[in-house]
């Protein structure tokens, strides 16, 4: 049967019809077997995916359980007697909402700064061809490899020198630019904005700033949205930097606040879970809503080659 198919394929029909030709004469048993395989794969994937999110689901469930129920085996997904006691306790113990607000402000400002700087630099690097610019771009690319952790100590002293420790502005200093963002926008400009379009606008007498704001930016909407989501989550989940820059209890970000809260002597699991759930639920919701943009942005990181 395989040989017969191969002979059929030697004729030069379009690719799709070859594929159909190989499937159509397949006996019902083979097709049923393929469907069973697919079902098995679906089940395996489903179990694996549920296992992936189980830790988070259980954590959120724990937030609403009584201390006794938290110890039961097997753990319950839906609390039998849901309680808000953990939540109210943790809100009383810690300035949790303040920390969330700090993180939110930091993440939003960082997102704006990164989108603006990346849009400008990415566009100029893509469309203005001066030799000096390619040298500068090479330097930007080269520094992109350097992890944040490597240079955060000198950066800390810069923030200290400005008297900005324990402030959102100080946090922001580390997250004003993103080398990858500049790279991403440059790639997008090269691929999606033809030179002719800019030339046509220039011939019509448009100024360079007008072209940037009214021609280029609207065409980059998708890429900028992807970058914005990426930048927001990057700042939202930042840990080492806020840990050293924000050291007073009022200036903690939510990550730092939670991490230090959980080292306390008297902290119980219920309150830890409640605090975590308060952070997890909105960020997971936000992610699910913005998933498309996010996936685009992340996927773009892998396309460097």
């Amino acid at each position, binding site marked *: 049967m*395989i040989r017969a198919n*191969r002979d059929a394929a030697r004729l030069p029909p379009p*690719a799709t019809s*070859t594929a159909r030709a*190989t499937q159509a004469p397949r006996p019902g048993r083979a097709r049923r077997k393929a469907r069973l395989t697919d079902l098995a*794969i*679906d089940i*395996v*994937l*489903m179990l*694996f*995916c549920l296992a*992936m*999110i189980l*830790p*988070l689901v*259980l954590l959120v469930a724990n937030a609403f359980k009584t201390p006794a129920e938290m110890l039961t*085996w*097997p*753990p319950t997904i839906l609390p039998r007697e849901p309680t808000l006691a953990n939540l109210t306790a943790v809100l009383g113990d810690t300035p949790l909402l303040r920390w969330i607000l700090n993180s939110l402000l930091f993440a939003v400002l960082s997102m704006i700064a990164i989108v603006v*700087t990346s849009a*400008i*630099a990415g566009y*100029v690097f893509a469309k*203005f061809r001066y030799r000096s610019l390619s040298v500068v771009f090479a330097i930007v690319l080269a*520094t992109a*490899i350097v*992890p*944040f*952790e*490597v*240079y955060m100590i*000198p*950066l800390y002293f*810069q923030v200290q020198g400005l008297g900005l420790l324990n402030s959102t502005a100080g946090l922001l200093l580390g997250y004003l*630019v993103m080398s990858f963002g500049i790279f991403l926008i440059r790639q997008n400009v090269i691929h999606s904005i033809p030179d002719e379009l800019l030339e046509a606008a220039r011939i019509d007498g448009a100024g*360079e700033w007008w072209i940037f704001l009214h021609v280029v930016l609207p065409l980059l909407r998708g890429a900028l949205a992807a970058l914005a989501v990426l930048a927001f989550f990057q700042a*939202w*989940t930042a*840990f*080492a930097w806020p840990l*050293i820059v924000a050291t007073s209890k009022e200036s903690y970000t939510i*990550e730092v606040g939670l*991490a230090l809260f*959980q080292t*306390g*002597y008297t*902290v119980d699991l219920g309150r830890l*879970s409640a*605090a*975590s759930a308060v952070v*997890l639920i909105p*960020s997971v919701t936000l*992610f699910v809503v913005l*998933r498309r943009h*996010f*996936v685009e942005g992340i*996927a773009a990181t*892998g*396309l460097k080659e």
Partner: protein
Amino acid sequence: MTRPVLKRKQFLFALAALVPVLAVYVWVRIMPIGEILRLSLHKWDLISSNKPFIGLANFRELFQDDLFLTALSNTAIIAFGVLAITIPLSIGIAALIHHRMRSRFAGFFETAVFIPHVVSLVPAAMAWKWIFDAKLGPLNAMLASVSIEPRAWLFDPFWSIVCIIVLCSWQALGYAVLIYLVGFRNLPRSLYEAAVLDGSTGWQRFRFISVPLLKPITLYVSVVTLVSGFNVYAQAFVLASDSQGAPGRQVRVLVLDMLENAFRNYRIGYAASEAVVLLLIVLLLTLVQFSLLRDRSARP
């Protein structure tokens, strides 16, 4: 408008737009990177005001420093451990998801695998800390139900590192799967159709077509995973810091050792030299990636 005028206008725009951005870039990236290289060659203990130049003495001291060497080996074990779990698992999962792209659950699969990668580190780490917890954790409860001896996972020098590897792999997996999915989508379909005609099995197509063709992606994901593995910090901070207050039971990793030297021991120059070691590791990994890629493209 004449051409030279237009050219000059463009040049002025490029200058006016780019200079502020570059100024910020130099200020918050280039300057601190330069400064870390400079500091690593100086002895600067925060309390004293003079910073004498001491050449490579910091580095010489580092490689006789037991704490640093422990941190370096722990970090390397974690980075390569995460790599060993993440790469095979993610290419397999990505292949299965790609195969079932038209399944009605495809969106759920992608989201579920990816969620651990985006959620905040600390709450995610706390979920695992609870799972591994000696007294309250479901892991021990589960083991007890099949009568396996429970363990204080996070207090054992060996198992606590394994726990960190599990947590980091759980987080790294989503990113790797996503990049592989992009890779699978870009593979030439004709090759697979030809292989199907030749009567190959799904496993053979995966093993002998997908895996070799995806090698550049594997290389990229490996380097990204290793680099983020070498930067591991929050995971170790949460998992191995303990609420029962027994100091010294932490899994020492590079970033932790560096921050401790800088902000607890006030040895800034010494901490800077650790940062430079971290930088050299990252550069080395990137160099290996590029040279392997070049090898491939040079081949006929």
